[in-house]
């Protein structure tokens, strides 16, 4: 009997040796004459255990990890092909608490399938949403997305259905072209959910975009992918080619008369190109400078045409809504934050990885129940949620429920759901300085508060730490932050004050200058 062995092709797994492990598995199986079929699946999201090797025993998958190439011989010796005991054995994969305690809707297939196999995708409930959508009027699709309560997962949390409705009803000019654009620029530190979708289940994004096209009346789609993600580029292009070959893309999709073309375009290493109007400029072949709004992209977007622009996770959440119904999706979550969020546990955390949970989960549950505390074993001092423009949250707020409104009310941001963990060795003044420095490097240069303010911010923090009139510098820094907050054209300059001020407000001791520290110590 042939045994099926799974080993991920996800970039994170590759980054710690999955390819070498896969090669060793194949070689050892051959050497021992074990009939094995090795499937390169995607990651289950337990990234600290990568490379995770799974083996199917009586239809049930058993996990082992982290498995390096040199562990392979001992795995075979322990009869792991029949689920044998071994120090790296993790038991039946589905029973691992980290996975068992999640609510996976968008990531339902993560790690289960061969990412680029369309048959695998269909066998695991893929393309059911599109099949339903093809039988619906565009307005009914839009209504379902509205009813589901799905909000943009890219950061701004704007209701997806309202954008789609605007595009559906937008007057068209000229040749009547409309577009669907997927924002796959995922620039935030601490985030990798988009990457995992694109590498691990690319068809769910393709399906979501196709549904968006049908709903909005758009026949062309682009995925704007950051160039730091070559693995995602390869997986997407392979999946798109397979979808064309099976008529899930192109003209007359599945005989429905609907048309949708899709193409991947690469970014070029500019954080600001994650901002939607800057992204559209970049897609048009220009410098990624932020546009003034209005007009909104839904009315005048790519090449001046009505454009649905959404984040990867937003679009990848659409198929399950069209498959299981808006009500099903909406039943997860709290308040006005409906559904689930793929949360990314990153940085100094023991069990880093992907945790998809309904809104309402607290930071404490995520950091300790899922995350297992810091990786260094030292106390967690702070976490930054929502990327480089998100606030640093102190321990006193760890019981905050994950909810867009609750976060906003306390001066924090959910953003794209990345949580970066720091232990007590972190220097918060250095983190505040870095935030300003990052803004200076990545500013598009169009507005003055962001372009100049960020550089001034670095200087002011430097002077403060050098003990050069520190009280005055602090007042200046706060004043500068206020100007950037109120006067910047987009949220880059407009939100960089959040990490800076939260660091300053929650951890003022770190901002004491050398002379001040010396005085306090004596």
């Amino acid at each position: 009997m042939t045994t099926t062995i799974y080993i991920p092709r996800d970039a994170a797994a590759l980054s710690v040796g999955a390819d070498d492990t896969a090669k060793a598995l194949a070689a050892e199986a051959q050497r021992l004459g074990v009939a094995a079929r090795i499937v390169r699946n995607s990651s289950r999201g337990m990234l600290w255990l990568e490379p995770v090797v799974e083996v199917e025993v009586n239809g049930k998958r058993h996990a082992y990890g982290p498995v390096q190439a040199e562990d392979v011989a001992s795995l075979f010796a322990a009869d792991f092909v029949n689920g044998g005991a071994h120090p790296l054995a993790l038991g039946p994969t589905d029973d691992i608490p980290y996975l068992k305690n999640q609510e996976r809707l968008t990531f339902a297939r993560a790690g289960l399938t061969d990412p680029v196999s369309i048959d695998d995708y269909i066998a695991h409930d893929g393309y059911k949403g599109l099949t339903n959508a093809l039988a619906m009027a565009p307005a009914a699709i839009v209504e379902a997305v509205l009813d589901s309560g799905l909000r943009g997962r890219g950061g701004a949390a704007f209701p997806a259905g309202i954008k789609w409705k605007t595009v559906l009803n937008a007057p068209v000019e000229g040749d009547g072209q409309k577009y669907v654009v997927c924002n796959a620029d995922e620039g935030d530190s601490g985030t990798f959910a988009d990457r995992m979708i694109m590498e691990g289940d690319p068809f769910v994004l393709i399906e979501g975009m196709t549904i968006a096209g049908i709903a909005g009346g758009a026949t062309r789609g682009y995925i704007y992918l950051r160039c730091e993600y070559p693995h995602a580029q390869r997986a997407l292009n392979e999946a798109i080619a397979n979808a064309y070959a099976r008529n899930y893309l192109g003209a007359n999709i599945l005989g429905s008369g609907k048309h949708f073309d899709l193409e991947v375009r690469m970014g070029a290493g500019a954080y600001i190109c994650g901002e939607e109007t800057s992204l559209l400029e970049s897609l048009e072949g220009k410098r990624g400078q932020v546009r003034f709004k209005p007009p909104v992209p839904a009315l005048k977007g790519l090449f001046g045409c009505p454009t649905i622009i959404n984040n990867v996770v937003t679009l990848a959440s659409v198929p399950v809504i069209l498959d299981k119904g808006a009500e099903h999706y909406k039943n997860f979550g709290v308040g006005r934050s409906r559904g689930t969020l793929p949360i990314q546990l990153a940085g100094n955390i023991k069990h880093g990885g992907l945790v998809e949970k309904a809104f309402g989960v607290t930071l404490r549950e995520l950091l300790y129940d899922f995350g297992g505390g810091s990786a260094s074993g030292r106390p967690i001092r702070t976490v930054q949620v929502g990327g480089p423009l998100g606030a640093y949250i102190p321990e006193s707020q760890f019981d905050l429920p994950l909810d867009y409104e609750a976060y906003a009310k306390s001066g924090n941001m959910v953003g794209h759901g990345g949580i970066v963990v720091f232990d007590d060795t972190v220097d918060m003044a250095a983190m505040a300085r870095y935030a300003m420095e990052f803004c200076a490097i990545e500013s598009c240069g169009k507005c003055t508060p962001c372009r100049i303010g960020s550089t001034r911010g670095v200087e002011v923090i430097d002077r403060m730490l050098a003990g050069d009139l520190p009280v005055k510098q602090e007042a200046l820094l706060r004043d500068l932050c206020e100007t950037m907050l109120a006067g910047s054209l987009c949220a880059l300059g407009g939100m960089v004050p959040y990490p800076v001020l939260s660091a300053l407000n929650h951890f003022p001791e770190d901002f004491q200058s050398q002379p001040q520290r010396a005085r306090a110590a004596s």
Partner: protein
Amino acid sequence: MKTERRVIPIKVEARSTLTPQDDAAVRTVINKMQDMPGALLPILHGVQDALGYVPKDAIPVIAQALNLSRAEVHGVVSFYHWYRQEKPGEHVIHLCRAEACQSRGAVALEAHAKAKLGVDFHGTSSDGRYTLEPAYCLGNCALSPAVMIDGELYGRVSPQRFDTLLEKTAEEAAS
């Protein structure tokens, strides 16, 4: 009184320094892509993929094909961090500087890498082997610090592992 005659110098455009092979490579990319909507970024990627960088003298060729000014093309090349205008070393190393990597020692790794290679960011080691570039997140934030070498991603990169990875590229080059 004799007046000085003022001579207005006319700058003659320097001849392109592109080798015939490089020139052909640039034109091949352009021919393949110039009809795409928003073709400039894909063309620049194509040129950089083929040559390792976007040579200064490729800019007029691209500008002419897309009916843009050289200034516009130059503006785009210089706006994006990814495009390089100098020939890189044999291997390009992207080292992540962002927060999740900092929380696990990226600052120390950065200092180590710079000292080891004897370069600052954007620099190429004197033996022409390695170019060091900063990155702002490589999407490997749960296995930080992260580094990418020639498009391959590496996680949990300690200074020692960094040295091992360098040795690996050297071995691969030798074999």
